[in-house]
């Protein structure tokens, strides 16, 4: 569904490339999590897909075709996009916010209304209560639910999520993570999610890609990474908290 081949991206004034010769792929319906500390290049990698940024070298295929081949706006409208601070339009109601992707594609107001209300229900916000409110009247968790609804309203087959739960408190984060997993089981989207939270990666990713200083150290399933770390960095990352991880998994199952 998405495939990176030797992709490199540098920013002016910084010596080390933000993304350094990265290659990986995501199968249709699969959830891949890019894991790494801040500045490792994981968000940059994600933004290269919907061309918020363009690479210096390498190629990115989306649905089998280079992502530069489709008109930019069409490409973006075919991909759901969720960011850490949500980015709801402060002067639009919740319903208008959810319907925003439909509005720019010329969907009729009546259909916008039906679909955005359905999506609010899907993310467990009662449309009766929330549709007419404004973003600043909602809690952080509720706002991010709206953000997810907005990303899904156009029924894209690909969803990009950039630290979607990073700004939320632990309890809210956990419930939203569970819900994302539930949603994904229902909807079967192809998802690339970026996080610095090891537990989140383990909870949501079918496969996890570990990034460090612009390089993709290893991509694999949880057991690949735990049992066959390809680099010292991965071993370090997954080795230390191994005991905690076991406890964590026990507590979840």
């Amino acid at each position, binding site marked *: 569904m998405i495939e990176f081949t030797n992709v490199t991206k540098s920013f002016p004034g910084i010596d080390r490339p933000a993304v350094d010769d990265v290659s990986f792929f995501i199968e249709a319906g699969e959830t891949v999590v890019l894991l790494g500390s801040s500045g490792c290049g994981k968000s940059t990698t994600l933004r290269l897909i919907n061309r918020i940024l363009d690479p210096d070298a390498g190629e990115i295929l989306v649905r089998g075709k280079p992502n530069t081949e489709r008109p930019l*706006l069409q490409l973006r409208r075919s991909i759901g996009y969720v960011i*850490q*601070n*949500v980015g709801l339009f402060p*002067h639009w109601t919740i319903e208008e916010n959810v319907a925003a992707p439909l509005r720019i594609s010329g969907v009729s107001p009546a259909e916008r209304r039906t679909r955005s209300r359905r999506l609010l229900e899907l993310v467990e916000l009662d449309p009766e209560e929330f549709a007419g409110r404004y973003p600043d009247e909602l809690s952080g968790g509720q706002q991010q639910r709206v953000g997810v609804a907005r990303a899904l309203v156009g029924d894209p087959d690909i969803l990009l999520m950039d630290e979607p739960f990073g700004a939320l408190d632990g309890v809210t984060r956990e419930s939203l993570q569970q819900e994302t997993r539930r949603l994904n089981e229902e909807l079967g989207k192809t998802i690339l999610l970026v996080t610095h939270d090891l537990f989140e990666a383990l909870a949501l990713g079918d496969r996890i890609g570990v990034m460090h200083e612009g390089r993709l150290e290893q991509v694999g399933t949880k057991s690949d990474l735990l049992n066959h770390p390809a680099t010292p960095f991965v071993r370090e990352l997954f080795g230390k908290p191994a005991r905690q991880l076991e406890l964590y998994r026990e507590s979840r199952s």
Partner: protein
Amino acid sequence: MARLPELRTTLLEHLFVLTLLPVGVAVLIAIPLAVSVRNIPVLRSAAIAITGIVQTIPSLAMLAFLLPLFGIGKVPAVIALTLYAILPILQNTLAGLRDLPPDVLEAADGMGFSKWQRLFLVELSFALPIIVSGIRTATVICVGVATLSTFIGAGGLGDFINRGLSLNRMSLLLIGAGAAAALALMLDFILDTAGLALRAGRRPRGLFGRFAICGLLLASVVAFAFVPIERKGGAIPGPGTGGPAPGTVRIGSKNFTEQIVLGELLAQWIEAKTDLRTERRFNLGGTMICHEALTAGAIDLYVEYSGTALLTLLGRELDPGASPEDVLEEIRAAYRQRFDLEVLPPLGFENTYAVTIRSDMAKERGWTKISDLVDHASELRAGFTAEFMEREDGLRGLVRVYGLDFGSLGDLAPELMYPAVAQGSVDVIGAFSTDGRILEFDLVTLEDDRKFFPPYEAAPVARRELLDRHPELEPALRELGGLLDGDAMRGLNHAVDVDKRNPRQVVRDFLESRLDKELL
């Protein structure tokens, strides 16, 4: 109320031409400008700095700068007002656009908003309430500054204020200032309401009440604009605007009583002696503006004083040995050569600066000439007009030639100078020798015993081109030579300033008595 038709004209002019038009043009300039520089910090700062500098130019200076380019009338006034209106709109638009969090823009881009969709649906619609509040500021500024554009003959409520000041009529002043203040409050309220209504989120309480009041205000403006009012004569013409009709002579005047009387005199004389029509563009804001208006062809004719023409307009020095005739010849030649203007025969009186004191003080001390003051100057408090303070033929020269060193000096507005000396707030003023208030307040002028002041013979100045186009005009104007002596001029000024009579009527009575004498 006799002033109502005039108030209606000037109020509507003030609202539509001098406020809404410049604000509208400023919106069309400032918002696209803000949008195009919003993401380029260097241009952004430059745009704010440049419009900020424009904002600091004093209004009258701005009008004076525009004079050589656009002459007088509504065009330069609208341009100046537009320049003043740009800054608040630009600043607020930029501030409103910057208030939008970057995540919101990233979300919009990521969703596939096109550049224009993002601009209109997200950025501008978010900034709208703040932009409206900038428009509100600009509007209130325009209503205020527009009262000054009367000085270049652009009309509006400033006509009332200017005439009130120059003719010493408090009622006119209050009508003009009151109407301008009411207009400012009304527009402020309407735009404030618009800003509140556009704000996202819960509607503030009382908004419907505000809408109702706005509706009433607008309805009353419409009613005031269209309800017929019976027009009565007797209004003092303000500086009219618009292009000249063929066969029309446009007569200008400065903004004090004598000049308005002289403008009336020229107008009625031309109407009586020729078939030409006249247009009165009186009350222009001072010597420079009248002169620029004449050379730019915005007016055809006004009365200038020979000494002012020589020293202020031509920038020459007075030859101490020169007679009044010599001075007149000198300016006549220079005006022909430099400006293609004709200086016509003088009217027969001089309006010179006159060092003036209370008559009881003059008697008590036995002072009759300026030199008598020299030894006592340090005990005296002097009050002069701002123009007199600066002019070479004013205070500076007076101090140099006589060695006067006054104990205290203050700027006084011309209309305040006479009561101030009469009441003893000051001891010495620089009066105008033909002012009716010299007699009224029991003042005496001191003799210029060292012949410091140049002659100030009043003479009409006309555009050569006009005189050539209408050959009957020059002989008619020449007949005016010597018609008015100093006492006659003082009498006319007195009738307007002190007796509060209408200048048009005063001049009509004067000319009728003259023509009767001619017939006898």
